[in-house]
């Protein structure tokens, strides 16, 4: 029993962090603006070469053959740097294409030659049959080659050209947002509930939210160490120090539970769905609360776009909306059998 990464997993963390610090630092959003929000074609291919999009995919399906445990380590790092939802969508779309009878697309997605957007169901949708019906909120879908939608009945890849998306400005200006309705469109590929795609999506979203919560904690603590008022660094005052400590506690709960959930799902444990929902809910809370606390520590600067605090506040809401909102997960938590 061990909830911490082993040596090989630590290498994944270190290599990912080093790569992303150079290729996708959070500061890119200040300097590069909206185009920097999503990886360009060259960077996406580089990530493909690093094996990211097939990391948790079995080797016989063209993947690296690692597991969800390795994927959560990767997505925590992506979340820390406010990475695009496309990365999560592309990893999962690869699985759907590979297992759902579209090997050509799977190969392109694994290589980072194609990218996917995320289509979150709005209300009740039908994706279990040969035709897809219902309304979806699509994240980072505009320049994507396909969209992935998932619920407890399975997951599908959707053709963006099969319906007319209505684009909207997003609360998070670094995320593309569109609403779309499908009325009987044929999916490009489809997997059933046995692949637990929606559970995997929730765990990866929880990883990104955990990473985001950690970024907020680290930004807040750094600012509290550097910013002087009344002749002292503000982190000396308990009115600032204690909210920072609470950020650390939320990070510990969020990340520990996300690992707990990833392992439960990987190993097919009976309580996996419960653990996943607990992770998604707590990671969402941690991200939102920490982002708000970090903004508050920054005072007036936190309200400006000259600092990064606002990015975390906004992205937390987007990631919370992915793979089931908090209420959905709280309902599932409540419906689970006794947990002792």
């Amino acid at each position: 029993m061990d909830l911490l990464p082993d040596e090989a997993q630590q290498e994944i963390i270190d290599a990912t962090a080093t790569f992303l610090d150079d290729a996708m630092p959070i500061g890119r959003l200040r300097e590069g603006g909206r185009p920097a929000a999503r990886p360009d074609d060259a960077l996406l291919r580089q990530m493909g070469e690093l094996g990211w999009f097939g990391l948790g995919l079995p080797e016989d399906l063209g993947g690296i053959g690692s597991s969800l445990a390795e994927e959560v380590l990767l997505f925590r790092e992506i979340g820390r740097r406010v990475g695009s939802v496309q990365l999560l969508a592309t990893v999962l779309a690869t699985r759907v294409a590979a297992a759902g009878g579209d090997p050509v697309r799977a190969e392109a997605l694994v290589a980072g030659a194609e990218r996917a957007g995320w289509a979150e169901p709005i209300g009740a949708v039908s994706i279990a049959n040969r035709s897809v019906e219902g309304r979806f909120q699509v994240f980072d879908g505009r320049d994507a080659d396909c969209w992935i939608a998932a619920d407890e009945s399975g997951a599908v890849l959707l053709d963006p050209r099969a319906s007319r998306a209505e684009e909207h400005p997003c609360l998070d200006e670094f995320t593309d947002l569109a609403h779309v309705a499908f009325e009987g469109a044929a999916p490009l590929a489809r997997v059933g509930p046995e692949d637990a795609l929606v559970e995997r999506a929730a765990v990866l979203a929880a990883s990104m939210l955990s990473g985001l919560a950690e970024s907020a904690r680290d930004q807040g603590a750094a600012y509290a160490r550097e910013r002087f008022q009344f002749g002292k660094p503000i982190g000396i005052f308990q009115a600032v120090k204690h909210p920072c400590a609470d950020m650390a506690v939320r990070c510990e709960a969020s990340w520990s539970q996300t690992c707990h959930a990833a392992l439960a799902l990987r190993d097919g444990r009976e309580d996996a769905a419960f653990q996943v929902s607990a992770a998604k809910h707590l990671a969402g809370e941690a991200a939102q609360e920490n982002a708000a606390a970090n903004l508050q520590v920054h005072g007036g600067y936190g309200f400006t776009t000259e600092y990064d605090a606002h990015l975390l506040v906004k992205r937390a809401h987007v990631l919370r909306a992915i793979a089931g909102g908090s209420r959905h997960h709280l309902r599932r938590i409540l419906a689970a059998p006794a947990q002792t």
Partner: protein
Amino acid sequence: MDLDVTPEERRFRDEVRTWLHENAPKEPRPPTEAEARPFDLAWQRAQFDGGWAGVSWPKEYGGRGLSLIQQMIWHEEYAHADAPYIGSCFVGINHAGPTLITRGSDEQKACHLPRILAGEVVWCQGFSEPGAGSDLASLSTRAEIDGDDLVVNGQKIWTSFADVADYQELLVRTNTDGGKHVGITWVIGDMTLPGVEVRPIRTMDGGAEFCEVFYTDVRIPLANVVGEVDDGWSVAMSTLGFERGTAFTARQIAVARSLEKLMTIAKDRPSPSGVGTAFDDDEIAMRLARLRAEVTAMRAMTLAAISRACRSPVPGPEGSMLKIFLADLEVRLRRLGLEILGPDGLVMGTAADWPNAYLRSHASKIGGGTSEIQRNIVGERVLGLPKHR
């Protein structure tokens, strides 16, 4: 990263479960301290006879010498077996004993460790004072060296079980030159010595576990000093974090069981609005769901803390994070319990002790270092924020 236990760990769990099932007292722990003392000691003796005394103590000192994972399994099974609260044996087993193992002389170890393990003596802790709570190092109970003795004058407070204890781990001020952390001495106090006076303090839950202890010219032999005179702060700190998270496993499971009971109660009780059960009330349902998520996260945090402890011999601040999280959780759980019970929530002595447990829950953010002090520790040691002192 792995949640699985090894076959040996599974066998160990079976062994623990069987032993606890056959040996843990079935009758409830008596409510008064005077009656609880013989009960606690008899249960400690039974664990000793069964080879289960001092699960975290090294074997060379008579303990069971369990690995951290085994300790966690022991505490989990202990909670599942509804085995009694350790009560008056807590300080001896979990604090004084480990301190003597780490810093005591051979004579001190030989004199005290076997008696603690065998359930022959009760220890209490004389650290806090009326003027030295969170700021423990400002303690001012004086001890003057006079020949071969320390002569102690002053007062301690919040001393659990002082009225039934044989010995005390006592922090006294032997030197006022230099900083407040210098000049403190850790000494073994005999509670039967002349000049020691104990007065119980009634607490808001009706208990009288807490005491004040007054010292008037109490003569304690210098041979009872653990470590060096004036170096007691480092002795006191040497066993902080000794449990390394494993102690939280029992509490985590106790909280989990209480919450599951509350889920059942909620499905059985009318809702505050009178329509359906309390479980059908959306606000109550969502609060139960949040607590359930937090309780399982508490287990994940405990596993993470133990995993960390397995890799590093140096205690980290994870104990403080666990404590902040758990204390907050306990208070909200107990408050929700009262709301779900409705009118019965105000009736003492009924409804499986929920009202009493609610009152007790207020201690969880205070005892063992307040949540505010824990936040200072996390802020300073985890996040590197500047100390205000």
